[in-house]
């Protein structure tokens, strides 16, 4: 049974161009970018070029790009960094109930340290209301951290409107754009964000690298101390081959973006039409935001059994997030959208699309899903 990978929101396979560029960099660009000799300069040049590409992709300046080990470190740097830098101005943080755990668990840790965190609700479409952000703002609010696009249901948050609102407030504004980067155009000035996190492995780049955009002048304390890399904001020898691969992946994602989104829209329709024609009782969760994420409730299915059956039939998808001991915890995102007793919690799975798929492959996946649902729902 050939595998059909529909879990691109979890991670993506690396693009051949990325692998080629990284292989070359690993072989030829071996120097330490901080060294003063020729090999160091070669590495520094490759790093600077990559950084310029990354900066350009979000309308930022290269010196505002802080390379990290990935999205989690970018989110943690933003949250702990701002919390530490501004603790004397206030200890209130605003976020939402549907953030990635890299944000939620960082906030929970800050609560233990005496910070006060407001977790805003979302509507049934998985979207936070700007007026809720407005109401939650206090004089001592130092940070607002709200994701751009949700990784489980694809809902897109009104980041530009919140950025606009925050023009009248001193709070620092961070957005976790890990899932949206490469899928939708992002411009830090249009969004009026101070900090923005992304990761390379969600857009066919390598695992282990991401960046945090830090607007010039924004106060953010380091997580890591050591050498003077990243303008003394993040110690550790730069991962030049990964940065090179990251930049190639970004260029590729942007070049293919419109075409990819058109394909994702077709895939969504192919799946939902096939489900409808087969008479399945299903609902699509969340607004049509990030087109590559499609979260579906199949009424009457049990997610644990469903996912294993899908895996056995070669359709690789996911649901919520794996928790302790590999078992599946109810998704906090679906809880926020539907409440803790909703059937969506037991019966929803996420399809997510990326490179390397076709209408034929999606149709085959849809057929396999239908066969399993019809077997499981008695």
């Amino acid at each position, binding site marked *: 049974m050939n595998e059909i990978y529909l879990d691109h929101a979890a991670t993506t396979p690396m693009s051949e161009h990325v692998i080629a560029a990284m292989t070359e960099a690993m072989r030829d660009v071996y120097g330490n970018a901080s060294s003063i000799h020729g090999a160091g300069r070669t590495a520094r040049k490759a790093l600077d070029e990559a950084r310029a590409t990354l900066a350009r992709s979000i309308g930022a300046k290269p010196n505002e790009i802080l390379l990290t080990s990935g999205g989690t470190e970018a989110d943690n740097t933003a949250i702990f960094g701002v919390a530490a830098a501004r603790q004397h101005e206030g200890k209130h943080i605003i976020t939402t109930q549907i953030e990635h755990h890299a944000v939620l668990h960082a906030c929970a840790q800050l609560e233990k340290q005496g910070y006060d965190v407001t977790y805003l609700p979302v509507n049934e479409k998985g979207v936070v209301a700007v007026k809720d952000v407005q109401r939650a703002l206090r004089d001592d609010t130092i940070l607002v951290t709200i994701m751009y696009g949700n990784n489980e249901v694809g809902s897109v948050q009104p980041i530009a409107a919140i950025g606009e609102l925050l023009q009248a407030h001193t709070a620092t504004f961070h957005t976790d754009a890990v899932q949206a980067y490469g899928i939708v155009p992002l411009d830090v000035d249009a969004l009026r964000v101070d900090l923005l996190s992304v990761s390379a492995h969600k857009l066919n780049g390598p695992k282990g690298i991401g960046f945090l955009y830090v607007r010039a002048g924004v106060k953010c304390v380091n997580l890591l101390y050591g050498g003077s890399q990243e303008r003394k904001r993040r110690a550790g020898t730069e991962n030049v081959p990964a940065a090179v691969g990251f930049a190639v992946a970004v260029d590729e994602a942007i070049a293919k973006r419109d075409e990819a989104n058109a394909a994702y829209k077709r895939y969504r329709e192919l799946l939902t039409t096939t489900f409808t024609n087969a008479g399945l009782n299903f609902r699509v969760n969340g607004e049509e935001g990030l087109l590559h994420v499609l979260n579906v409730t199949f009424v009457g299915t049990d997610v644990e059994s469903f996912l294993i*059956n899908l895996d056995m039939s070669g359709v690789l998808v996911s649901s919520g997030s794996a928790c302790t001991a590999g078992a599946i915890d109810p998704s906090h995102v679906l809880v926020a959208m539907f409440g803790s007793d909703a059937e969506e919690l037991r019966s929803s799975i996420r399809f997510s699309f990326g490179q390397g798929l076709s209408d034929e492959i999606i149709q085959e996946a849809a057929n396999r899903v239908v066969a399993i649902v019809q077997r499981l729902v008695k």
Partner: protein
Amino acid sequence: MNETKDRSQIRVVVGMSGGVDSSVTAYLLKEQGYDVVGIFMKNWDDTDENGVCTATEDYEDVIAVCNEIGIPYYAVNFEKQYWDKVFTYFLEEYKAGRTPNPDVMCNKEIKFKAFLEHAMNLGADYLATGHYARVDRTGDTVKMLRGVDNNKDQTYFLNQLSQEQLKHVMFPIGDIEKKEVRAIAEKAGLATAKKKDSTGICFIGERNFKEFLSQYLPAQPGNMETFDGDVKGTHDGLMYYTLGQRHGLGIGGDGEPWFVLGKDLARNVLYVGQGFENDKLYSHALTAVKLSFTTDEARPQTFNCTAKFRYRQQDSPVTVEMREDGSALITFDEPQRAITPGQAVVLYDGDECIGGGTIDTVIKNGETLTYVG
């Protein structure tokens, strides 16, 4: 060769706990050519304040073993079913002054019901577990036999399995001795080869039983008395004691050691007396409820067989008299010591485990003992 090919078409889901028994179960089935899938059941969350959870550690072992064997693995969460069907029953029984057997209930309601159903939903032909028991499929009905390792035989805990359940189960290590199981694991290089066996009730694990129970049931200390009314001390709560228990009473003095002889729930009194052979501990018959048989074969209303009243006990000859309501009067050939309500009475015909029930009342000289809980 043909047989191997056929077996590859037979899907067996193995319930894997992260222990050596279920690891070897999966390994043997894979060696025999079956289409094997390993599934870890998470029934209980014991995550402590440091985020450490034994289930996580056990699942790590399941992953390691499955990768070594080369089979897919998954985890499934039955915490809610376990709480509703097993733990609630466990607490209710303790509240009623009895000594429940959660492992029997877990096998009946979770492992061979909810989990079996889950396995069937994955297209499995069989569910296999690492129990020391055997399944005999040579006749028209499937029989459950004792494991060959007499010291490890676990049919006591499996007595409630029905014919329908047995049709779908395999116990691949029931044919071998425990030390052989370890040897196979070691030879195959399985990560769990030297892992310590789990002891006690699964959700309590190595923890202090008293402390655990006190988190869920309020303990009411009261008097320890002899049947003559002499107060010998104070007990910590009736639920912490079981019939025939010697340790933890803290009664000193001359003569033979002291034992728990019974309980008076209404007065919150624990009856104690001296001597392992104390006459109050002995009885002649019991009534059992929730009688269940492993086969659907017709049997006379009254029949003779052997029985175990607790795990790892020698069999005793008994006469079973079935009643209309599904309960039974079970009379012992010889008086039995410390028959404990709430525990299982399990019936055997030679090597075959034919079924069992839950001990409800205890009878001595034709009268129901009111002091045993």
